[in-house]
């Protein structure tokens, strides 16, 4: 008897950040179009993905969009929750589900969390920092809001490739640490370039009366790196991984305090 089953069109987009492809599936063509626009430059033409997420779109009826994010681990699944979304992810099967309204901010938060969890076990991390490539080397510029991430990004010379003005993506590979571009933007609202380079230095930003670079001792570097790492999970094992990643990083990568006046001459000291 005809008419008992109806087919629902299913749309997919693969978003590859840091070389980790994540497929997002939806039945809403407008939402798909929004994702393709939001993550332009990071949309992979290849169909393969390490992780698959189904997005269930709901009316924006969650009670508190400003609530803190909660990330917990139970029975092999990660549960991520904020006022504007609920998400589950099972790393063993590579599958997950996100319930959110049709907005770009919720899925952006979920992607940041998932990448943070993926990176932690590999010795990498997301960092509150701008980053750019110059002369084939990546430089990170870390600092809290107002420290100068946007300013240093805006002052970058034409021969520098901006990876991000807000959230840097750092992976550990056998040859060392590599920084990747991200679509996670700050005040510049400009997507980073989807490229990568070995990390040459981490600069801790400070604005001052003159341009100068001072080495930072390992303990201070470790503390400041940890203070700027994105970390969501209330999970003991993940805390250990993040801590060890920060300690390994400052052991291998030079860390400096970059004090600068807000003009382009600061870049004469970098690269």
């Amino acid at each position, binding site marked *: 008897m005809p008419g008992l089953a109806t087919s629902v069109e299913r749309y997919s987009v693969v978003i590859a950040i840091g070389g980790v492809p994540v497929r997002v599936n939806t039945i809403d063509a407008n939402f798909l179009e929004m994702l393709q626009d939001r993550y332009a430059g990071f949309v992979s033409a290849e169909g393969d993905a390490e992780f698959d997420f189904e997005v269930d779109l709901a009316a924006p009826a969650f009670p508190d969009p400003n609530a803190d994010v909660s990330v917990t681990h139970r029975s092999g699944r990660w549960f991520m929750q904020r006022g504007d979304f609920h998400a589950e992810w099972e790393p063993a099967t590579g599958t997950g589900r996100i319930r959110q309204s049709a907005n770009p901010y919720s899925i952006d938060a979920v992607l940041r969390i998932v990448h943070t969890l993926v990176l932690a076990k590999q010795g990498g991390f997301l960092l509150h920092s701008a980053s750019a490539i110059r002369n084939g080397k990546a430089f990170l510029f870390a600092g809290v809001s107002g420290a100068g991430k946007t300013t240093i990004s805006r002052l970058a010379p034409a021969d520098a490739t901006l990876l991000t003005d807000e959230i840097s993506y750092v992976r550990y590979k056998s040859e060392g640490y590599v920084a990747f571009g991200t679509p996670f933007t700050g005040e510049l609202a400009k997507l980073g370039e989807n490229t990568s380079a070995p990390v040459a230095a981490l600069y801790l930003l400070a604005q001052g009366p003159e341009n100068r670079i001072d080495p930072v001792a390992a*303990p201070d570097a*470790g503390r400041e790196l*940890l203070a700027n790492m994105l970390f969501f999970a209330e999970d003991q094992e993940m*805390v250990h991984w993040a801590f*060890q990643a920060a*300690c390994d990083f400052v052991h291998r990568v030079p860390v400096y305090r970059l004090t600068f006046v807000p003009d382009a001459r600061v870049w004469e000291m970098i690269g």
Partner: protein
Amino acid sequence: MNRKLYVARSPRIAARMLGEEMLVMSGQGSTLFTLNPTATILWQAADGATPLDEIVERRICAEFEVKPEDALRDAEALAEDLAKHGILVISEQPIASTPVVPQEQQQR
């Protein structure tokens, strides 16, 4: 009779020597601590099997010019403080296992 105290590193923390400082991170609440030199010695010696007075005599009195009774009193206070922060475990009996070992400038 003097009571014997045993101290062990909490399995709920991660620790690492960076330069000259011991950094300790609590798994709960992601709180970061920096141990002073005395606390670092105590932390490194806290194997759960060696009584605190022996640690004081062998490690702390050997390192610092301090009377053993004063050093023990200070070490007990320090151990209790570290235990309050979840960094050490204190017991009047030997403590079976301490799975977390500080990694000092390890190479990945």
